[in-house]
């Protein structure tokens, strides 16, 4: 009953004309971003974040979330038409989607991708709506030691699944913690790591790091090659995009599989939509009576991963909104956005800001309907975006990045920091250091330090407090176990397989 009331109130918020407009803008931008190879949701959300500071927070979070899940819809278009994933979550869609397109079935492939995304995306939101409130209630009993343990566990899971080398992923997370420490210590007013620069006394803005590491680094990687990819013919007319009844029948299990796996993997920090889509594809292949045909243009091979990567969004928002723990680079940016607007995601987020939470949930139902409408009949129109020359696109991304950073503080110093973090992000990619742990370390750094110091104040300096409380002891033990996984041959082989697929 409580959930139903909340949802009805949420629809009242989401259906306000301004919020409907921002929802539409978000899903539209998300679709375009998903279609464009080389521009992902974290980079886009980071670039647009500064522009939302003067917006109503409900409209702003609805728009940013729209970009997040809208990109999952758009990502399939390039996978199917060009064999180039628009974003990492759509890599697996290339396997059967492109083969279908080559056989002249691009329409049904695009159609089933949109339908599976809609079904699983809606199931993901349903999961978020049902699971988030009880988790938030449970987390109300958490104190500083539990929060420290929870953040450590979240960071450990992200480190585990972020890169082939755990050492490099841990180092990236530690650099994130270091960047988070730059500035004035709020407990003692001590200036830390400021190098005598006045501008660093208030710390390094999250937006500057996120835009540098994601957007600038992405442009630099994409600028390495000058080539453009060929586009297969785009089917025209809704009739040519609709799958047949037999196609839909073949995809029955894929819809369910994608929905459930996507949500569960999303709720785990570090899981992410790429792993969700691969797991879902793997399961679909394992149970399919025509498993040997997978990879040659089987429609379930498109439906399962596309469903999973959309359902993952709902799952990923559960730990973010109820515990304040982001599980990926994108959700870390969403966390920073909520904090910048003055909210504190965590157990009290839903009771203190019901309009925002339920408004977001309701907007995701509406957004999924908008995306289905946008992505079925309008796919040929969106595919035209792919004809935008790279030499026009990349300067635009650089320009929006610089404007975004400058608009936060009006400081040229921040633009210099942006250059430095862009270079850092590029070097990290080249040297195989994952960027998600760095962003997560940065997002969680201040909270982790505060929770640890408060815990030690409670215990008068004894670290035993972290292991003497059952919930915190369990979570810290899990964090240690997670980091020890690479030492166990079989488990590490599984981890590396998951990463190779990614």
């Amino acid at each position, binding site marked *: 009953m409580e959930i139903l009331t909340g949802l009805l109130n949420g629809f009242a918020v989401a259906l306000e004309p301004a919020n409907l407009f921002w929802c539409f803008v978000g899903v539209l931008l998300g679709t375009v971003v998903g279609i464009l190879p080389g521009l992902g949701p974290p980079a886009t959300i980071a670039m647009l974040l500064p522009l939302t500071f003067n917006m109503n927070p409900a409209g702003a979070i609805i728009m940013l979330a729209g970009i997040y899940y809208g990109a999952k819809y758009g990502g399939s278009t390039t996978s199917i038409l060009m064999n180039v994933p628009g974003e990492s979550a759509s890599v697996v869609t290339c396997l059967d989607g492109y083969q279908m397109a080559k056989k002249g079935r691009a329409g049904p492939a695009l159609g089933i991708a949109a339908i599976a995304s809609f079904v699983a995306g809606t199931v993901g939101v349903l999961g978020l709506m049902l699971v988030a409130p009880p988790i938030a209630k449970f987390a109300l009993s958490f104190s500083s030691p539990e929060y420290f343990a929870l953040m450590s566990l979240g960071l450990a899971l992200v480190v585990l699944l972020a890169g082939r080398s755990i050492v490099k992923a841990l180092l990236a997370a530690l650099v994130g913690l270091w960047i988070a420490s730059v500035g004035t210590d709020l407990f*003692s007013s*001590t200036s830390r790591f400021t190098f005598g620069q006045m501008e660093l006394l208030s710390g390094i803005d999250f937006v500057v790091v996120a835009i540098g590491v994601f957007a600038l680094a992405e442009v630099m990687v994409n600028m390495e090659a000058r080539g453009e990819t060929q586009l297969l013919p785009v089917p025209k007319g809704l009739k040519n995009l609709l799958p047949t009844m037999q196609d839909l029948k073949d995809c029955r299990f894929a819809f369910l599989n994608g929905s459930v796996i996507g949500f569960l993997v999303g709720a785990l920090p570090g899981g992410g939509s790429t792993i969700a889509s691969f797991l879902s594809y793997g399961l679909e292949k394992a149970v399919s009576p025509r498993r040997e045909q997978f990879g040659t243009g089987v429609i379930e091979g498109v439906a399962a991963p596309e469903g999973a990567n959309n359902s993952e969004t709902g799952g990923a928002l559960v730990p973010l909104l109820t515990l304040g723990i982001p599980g990926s680079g994108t959700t870390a940016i969403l966390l920073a956005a909520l904090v910048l607007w003055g909210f504190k995601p965590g157990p009290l987020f839903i009771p203190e800001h019901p309009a925002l939470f339920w408004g977001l949930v309701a907007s995701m139902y509406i957004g999924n309907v908008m995306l289905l409408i946008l992505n079925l009949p309008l796919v040929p129109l969106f595919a035209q975006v792919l004809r935008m020359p790279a030499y026009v696109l990349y*300067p635009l991304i650089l320009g929006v990045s*610089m404007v975004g950073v400058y608009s936060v503080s009006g400081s040229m110093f921040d633009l210099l920091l942006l*250059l430095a973090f862009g270079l850092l992000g590029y070097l990290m990619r080249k040297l195989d250091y994952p960027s998600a742990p760095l962003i997560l370390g940065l997002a969680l750094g201040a909270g982790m330090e505060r929770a640890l110091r408060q815990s030690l104040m409670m215990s008068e*300096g004894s670290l035993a407090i972290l292991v003497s409380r059952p919930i915190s002891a369990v979570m810290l033990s899990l964090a240690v176990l997670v980091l020890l996984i690479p030492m166990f041959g079989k488990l590490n082989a599984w981890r590396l397989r998951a990463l190779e697929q990614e």
Partner: protein
Amino acid sequence: MEDRTRKSGDLWSGVALAALGLYIIVQARQWEYLGPEGPGAGFFPFWYGVAMLGLSALLVVSHLRRRSVRGNAIDWARLGRAFSTWFALAASVALFKPLGFVVGFALLTYFIVAVMYRRPLKTAALVAVASAAGFYLVFDLALGVPLPVGILGF
């Protein structure tokens, strides 16, 4: 990117991160570690500094112990294009103060289109002027987002 870059990259990035870890430890020791009210400003940085030093040492040692594996050659052309983009961006940021965002960004766009993508100069000029004007109209005039202003007043 190529194996060889990564392999020697492991060594040099490990050394750089070890130096950073050491710097963090040295700095953290100058701040209060444990006070009467609990941990001080140096407590948390000290421990992640130690972890950084230890892990980077592990990275360096594992690199040195690894048998040398022949990797692919470094593709300097690709690296050159990426770094050229970065330098062009840095130059345009440097030009923001005297010339303002609009002119600095137009020059950056012109460079990318004409030099990096080798498009005709007319196309480059058109894209540069249109993009810069678009940014000025959308951000400065329509959205009221301030852009760096130069001596020309925009």
